[in-house]
């Protein structure tokens, strides 16, 4: 019967530390390289005009609105845009910094005209 040999505890500790140091050091080297590469790319990045839309988790499916059906099976709202009376719109008016507010004409205290 083969005699069991025991690895001393100090050796085990040494092996564990070596393994940990190797893992950390290797990870550090990789992450630095990634950071350097990211910095380099961000300095020279050029966004192409025809950049594709950012991918989403759920793929977009194009579907003609005219054929869309509601859950109950009835046809959806008409496809044409509804006309909105600008006087009734709650939207804030578009304003640019160059446009000045309309001047307020004060009311005179009284007026002069031919004797009345």
């Amino acid at each position, binding site marked *: 019967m083969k005699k069991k040999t025991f690895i001393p505890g100090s050796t085990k500790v040494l092996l564990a530390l070596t393994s940990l140091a190797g893992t950390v050091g290797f990870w550090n080297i990789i992450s630095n390289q990634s950071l350097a590469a990211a910095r380099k790319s961000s300095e020279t990045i050029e966004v192409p005009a025809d950049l594709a839309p950012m991918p989403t988790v759920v793929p977009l499916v194009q579907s003609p609105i005219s054929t869309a059906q509601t859950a109950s099976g009835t046809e959806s709202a008409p496809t044409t845009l509804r006309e909105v009376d600008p006087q009734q719109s709650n939207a804030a008016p578009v304003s640019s910094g160059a446009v000045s507010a309309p001047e307020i004409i*004060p009311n005179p205290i*009284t*007026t*002069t*005209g*031919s004797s009345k």
Partner: protein
Amino acid sequence: MMQTSEFRSMGSRIFVALDGSDARVFAASRQVPGWFTRAETIFSRFDPESELSRLNCSHGSVFHASREMIEVLQLAKEFRQRTRGLITPTVLDALINSGYDADFSSILSQQQGGLHEQLLPPDAMDFDLDATAGTVILPRGIHLDLGGYAKGWTAHQAMLRLSEFAPALVNAGGDIAISGPQRNGDPWLIGIENPLNPEENVAMVNLAKGGIATSGKDYRHWMKGGKLQHHLIDPWTGLPAVSDVFSATVIAPDVMLAEAAAKVAVIAGSGAGREWLDSQDSLAYFLQMENGQILSSFSFEQYLWKSLEKTFQQRT
């Protein structure tokens, strides 16, 4: 706090503004209608019991006049001299001949009859006034109309009395007397009516003190003998003045002078009228012409409210 009140007197709309809120100011403003009523009993030519009516019937005898009457007659004499006879109170007969023979509201409903013959120039027509004795001698055949003078004078007197209590503005049918700036130091903003649309102002002026008045053919006019008549009589023809000025607004040191000067502009026209106005110190004028054009003195522009100044410049 501004206290304002409005009422009718002397055939015109009267407006009073007082820049104050204490009890004395309120009490003073309530007295103003009484002051105007008192003036009407003296100067109305439509009231046969008025002092003026009695004077006009004095037929050359010595007439003992009230202090108010003496003051207004002195004013009339001064303006007569200053305007070389153009502004005179002795045009009453011409005014009646042209159709202005009753209160203006009743004239508007008549508008018929023939045109009387032209009267002689009233150059020699005058009256004797002894201010010290308080007497007047009105020659036979001469009758006085003190409407314009009396209204401006009454507005001025009311303004003087009210100014003891607060900054005051009194507007008597467009003749405006101002005591001084408002309490906060600001001038008073006054609109100049469009004679073709009184609801609209053609300009606005800032006036801190003095008087502003407008005279024109736009309101007190009527038809007689198929011709358009108005109340501004040319004493040299005895007829309603024919001129190229439709309406004139004048700023002056006091409202009486402003009223007389505005009449000069309408009666004499843009030629002789402006020449006279330019020769007078401290007068600023704004003329609305028959053809729609606007003419003004350089001195008037300093009073114009800024935004309408641009409008005015475009129309000149």
